[in-house]
């Protein structure tokens, strides 16, 4: 395997092992579904593999992978909101009743309950800030925007989260 990837600066398997766990958990928090998060993680690493040789090193490789993950997740959640996707998911759930265990476990958590009700963009920002622990500069790089915008969006996301907690009677 080492010989196969010897000509590359970045060893794909190493990149995969170093980043998979965090990418999966970020995807889980944005998509709020275990199986979807797994599928999206796979898509993310396929994209990483495809574009690894063209990675321009303007940012760190982790930042670049997070950007791919966040964009893929947001696209997926937006697509899921469409009616035909919702109908498809309904059929999929009926045909696939097993494997809901993981969903039930983590969706009981207060933080996940709040995230599930939020807009995908705010889910991503709150996850990157509180779960991944990035600062404004890093989040701005991942989301491809400015630090000032991230400050304002974080404030709005927290406001929305507070409203959801109050409305849903979620104890924090």
């Amino acid at each position: 395997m080492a010989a196969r990837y010897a000509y590359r600066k970045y060893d794909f398997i190493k990149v995969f092992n170093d980043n998979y766990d965090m990418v999966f958990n970020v995807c889980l928090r944005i998509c709020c579904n275990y199986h979807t998060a797994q599928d999206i993680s796979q898509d993310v690493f396929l994209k990483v593999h495809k574009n690894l040789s063209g990675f321009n090193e303007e940012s760190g490789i982790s930042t670049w992978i997070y950007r791919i993950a966040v964009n893929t997740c947001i696209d997926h959640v937006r697509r899921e909101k469409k009616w035909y996707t919702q109908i498809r998911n309904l059929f999929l759930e009926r045909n696939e009743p097993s494997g809901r265990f993981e969903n039930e476990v983590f969706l009981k958590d207060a933080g996940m309950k709040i995230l599930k009700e939020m807009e995908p963009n705010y889910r991503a920002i709150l996850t990157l800030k509180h779960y991944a622990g990035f600062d404004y500069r890093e989040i701005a790089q991942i989301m491809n925007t400015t630090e000032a915008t991230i400050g304002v969006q974080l404030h709005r996301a927290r406001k929305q989260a507070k409203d959801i907690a109050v409305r849903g009677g979620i104890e924090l």
Partner: protein
Amino acid sequence: MNCKDMKDRIPLMISYYIDREMPEHESEEFEKHLSECPSCWKMLEETRRIGGALVRTPRISGNPGETLDKMRQRKKWWNSPIPFRPRKWVYAGMFAALIALLFVNLIPPGYFDSKQVAVNQPSYTTSPGPGGKQSGIGPGLPFSGSGGNAASTPTPSPSDAEIRTAQASPEPGGIPDEDSVTYNIKLNESEYEVNISGQETQLVSLEIKEGDKEIWMDLEGTQPEKNSEK
């Protein structure tokens, strides 16, 4: 600091304060205000609780092995090498090279290794021999005017003042047998007389005069006597 005047800005400031993105002097002032204002303190605590709940979300271990196996199952993908994607500057370089190539092709041949000079009344002292009819000097590539016609005629008329390309040394085969050719060349307001004589395909002598001064060069390219009087 009075929070009643800044009611709209307080939640944003709390957000910046919690994230430690507030400048130090503002942060100290805000801390002082928080210790004195219970409503702002309450707002801060609520925001902190939201953040705390998100931090405490369970870390689920995914299944990297399964994901990698699924990726490996796509044999076509797994066996294909990571595609080569040149960076932007490579594309830019290739484009620049293409433009340069086109530009070079547009330049007429011999443009860089020749001088553009005015040649007056080229005269042949003897008739051309069997080796060739035309002088090697001024191979007949005029840039403008009627030079093309003049260059192709063996005895050009004296009135045909023309722009010609004069090379430093003529082509070996271009000199008529045992003939000599004299050119009067005007260059930078000076008149030069160039006399070239050759034998069969061999250049025998090359004489260059500026007025009465002889500034001729021998065939090795040296200048034995500078400005020597003839």
